[in-house]
């Protein structure tokens, strides 16, 4: 398509044409109305003047006879810019007046008519048009009085010229404006299309140009940009995840493969094969767990797990998790303490339980107080209190806080955000078994409920808190279902 073809196909240009037509029509009808009215006015003026002159001259004729008539006509006919006068005898002989010749038959009909004429005193042979009145006088004379229509014609000419020019100006300005507007729109659309094509070609960081006028195209562009922002973030997330998956799933897969290869290469006894196979199954179970955790995180992050929400007491969850992990902690030389107050919460009980379980598992694994340095008296650093882990459930305003506090080394301020990312295992934890997904799952669950996972300092130690809105995703119907939930008066 040529550039011009593109131009005249734009909506802006087509709209311009429609308006142009409407404006031209309007201008034409305005001028037509004006012209027609003017013509009527001039004609009226002529008829009034001529009628009064006819009665005046008739009266003079009646009073002073032919002589008076003759005298008056000759007198008036000689004035500059005079009307047309003609008096004829019974047999059509002109006896007075300033009319040289007339269209045939005009003198024979009474009343008004338009006719071509020529003045007596005019040099050229040009005929002019006039509006004339013919009256029968007593004694067989006929009187013609009329007025030249040149004035009316000139006025008409001016109006016609004005019409021509104005329509020309309207058309030129209209088409020019249309092209200007269409080109402006077209340029911006072309710019957008170009950017969109670059983005489609893979450059996700590009953005649509946004002008400063804040018009509808700018608003559209900034909305599309916001959408691109989101897409880019999602794509980045996806890429990061796939990179991490590639790394963290390939490592155990490689181990798995190496073991199988090693077992095959060595000609061992049945017990050796058995041991190798058992380790293989163990390893693949670990892989499955990692995979499940990843899927769970993905689902929580995409908001798919929004179903299965109901009202429950966060304290019950804390108690359940405490009860489940208490023996494990004790075996590890830790004490699991519980501090709860009834805290109603609307959410996915299963997921919140799992998130809390992850935090407790982390606390048991990594929350041990640092070993005393050799030489230092044992027990001075590691007090009984230092081996405690506290699970807490409480409400605070509209929020429910589920926290796990340990007295371990904690996580330095700068690393906290990093620690919640997928597969991230801080150096201190790398030697321990684990997938590096515990905190990211907890964080994803909190996000799903419209809350967040906060990591803080317990001086010393780590306090990990699931901050959840008490009515995460709950509607007003929740209040009706749970009469025991204290209602906030709005």
């Amino acid at each position, binding site marked *: 398509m040529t550039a011009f073809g593109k131009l005249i196909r734009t909506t802006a240009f087509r709209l311009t044409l429609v308006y142009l037509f409407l404006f031209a029509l309007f201008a034409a009808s305005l001028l037509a109305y004006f012209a027609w009215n003017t013509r009527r006015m001039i004609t009226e003026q002529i008829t009034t003047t001529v009628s009064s002159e006819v009665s005046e001259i008739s009266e003079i004729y009646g009073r002073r006879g032919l002589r008076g008539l003759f005298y008056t006509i000759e007198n008036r006919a000689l004035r500059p810019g005079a009307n047309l006068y003609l008096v004829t005898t019974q047999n059509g002989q002109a006896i007075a007046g300033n009319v040289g010749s007339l269209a045939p038959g005009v003198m024979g009909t009474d009343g008004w008519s338009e006719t071509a004429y020529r003045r007596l005193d005019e040099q050229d042979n040009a005929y002019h048009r006039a509006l004339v009145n013919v009256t029968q006088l007593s004694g067989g004379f006929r009187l013609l009085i009329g007025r030249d229509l040149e004035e009316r014609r000139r006025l008409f000419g001016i109006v016609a010229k004005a019409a021509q020019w104005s329509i020309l100006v309207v058309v030129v300005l209209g088409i020019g404006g249309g092209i200007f507007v269409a080109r402006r729109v077209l340029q911006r659309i072309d710019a957008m299309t170009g950017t969109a094509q670059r983005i489609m070609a893979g450059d996700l960081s590009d953005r649509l140009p946004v002008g400063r006028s804040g018009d509808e195209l700018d608003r559209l562009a900034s909305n599309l940009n916001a959408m691109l922002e989101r897409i880019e973030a999602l794509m980045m997330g996806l890429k990061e995840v796939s990179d991490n998956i590639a790394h963290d799933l390939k490592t155990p897969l490689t181990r798995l493969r190496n073991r199988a290869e090693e077992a095959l290469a060595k000609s061992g006894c049945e017990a050796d094969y058995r041991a190798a196979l058992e380790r293989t199954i163990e390893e693949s179970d670990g892989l499955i767990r990692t995979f*499940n955790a990843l899927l*769970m995180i993905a689902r929580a992050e995409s908001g798919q797990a929004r179903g299965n929400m109901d009202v429950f007491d966060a304290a019950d969850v804390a108690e359940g998790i405490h009860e489940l*992990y208490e023996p494990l902690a004790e075996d590890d030389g830790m004490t699991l303490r519980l501090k709860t107050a009834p805290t109603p919460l609307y959410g996915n009980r*299963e997921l919140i339980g*799992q998130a809390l*379980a992850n935090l407790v*598992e982390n606390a048991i694994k990594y929350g041990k107080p640092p070993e005393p340095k050799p030489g230092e008296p044992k027990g001075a650093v590691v007090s009984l209190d230092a081996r405690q882990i506290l699970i807490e459930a409480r409400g605070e305003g509209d929020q429910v806080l589920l926290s796990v506090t340990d007295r371990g080394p904690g996580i330095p301020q700068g690393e906290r955000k990093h620690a919640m990312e997928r597969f991230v295992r801080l150096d201190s934890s790398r030697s321990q078994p684990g997938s590096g997904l515990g905190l990211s799952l907890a964080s994803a669950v909190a996000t799903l409920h419209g809350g967040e996972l906060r990591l803080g300092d317990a001086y010393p130690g780590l306090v990990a808190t699931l901050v959840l809105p008490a009515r995460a995703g709950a509607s007003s119907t929740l209040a009706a279902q749970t009469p025991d939930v204290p209602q906030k008066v709005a």
Partner: protein
Amino acid sequence: MTATAPLIAPQMRILIIEDDRESADYLVKAFREVGYVADLAGDGEEGLAMAESGDYDVLVVDRMLPKRDGLSLIGALRDKGNRTPVLILSALGQVDDRIKGLRAGGDDYLPKPYSFAELLARVEVLSRRNVGPAEETTYRVGDLELDRLSHRVARGKDELTLQPREFRLLEYLMKHAGQVVTRTMLLENVWDYHFDPQTNVIDVHISRLRSKIDKGFERPLLHTIRGAGYMIRDGIR
């Protein structure tokens, strides 16, 4: 129910409805090896017809099947009053999928990939359900006795003191005495959690329970089954 009940109901009949030929063949072979009758249906329609006509103790149904999907198959069976226990196998292992499966009329749900030990343990527990409700008020295994009404537990003449959760754990184990119970089954049925913990929480609970019921007694009752889970029964392995 006592420990002298046969370990495995003789000739348990299992119908496997699974379209992936390889895993289906593996399952059939594995079930036959432990002494069960295992039949195979390759799609939903065939599976429904076989489940209706055959007298099966347990159905193992894949969630996604050609011709008729697993959930609709279960729905059709249940509509016709067929109450054969159904275990759903699914690659969709998420919480809400499990709930959907159980709501559709399934009795248990196992996400893929699974271990055969886990599947076998669950199938055995399900089929026992088919035999009739084992809702006795007292469970006995050897000289261990658990009274479900008074919450009393005794071994021989000794009264044992158990924590509430330990009681529920023992209750579940004894309800399925002579059957293997896996760690995930315990976590699901005793604690009502459906995630797999990264740590050996269940083992710790079991060892606590074991120290209460077996410590100081000549014959242990609570056994660890390697690679599968736990079993309570009287007798020497």
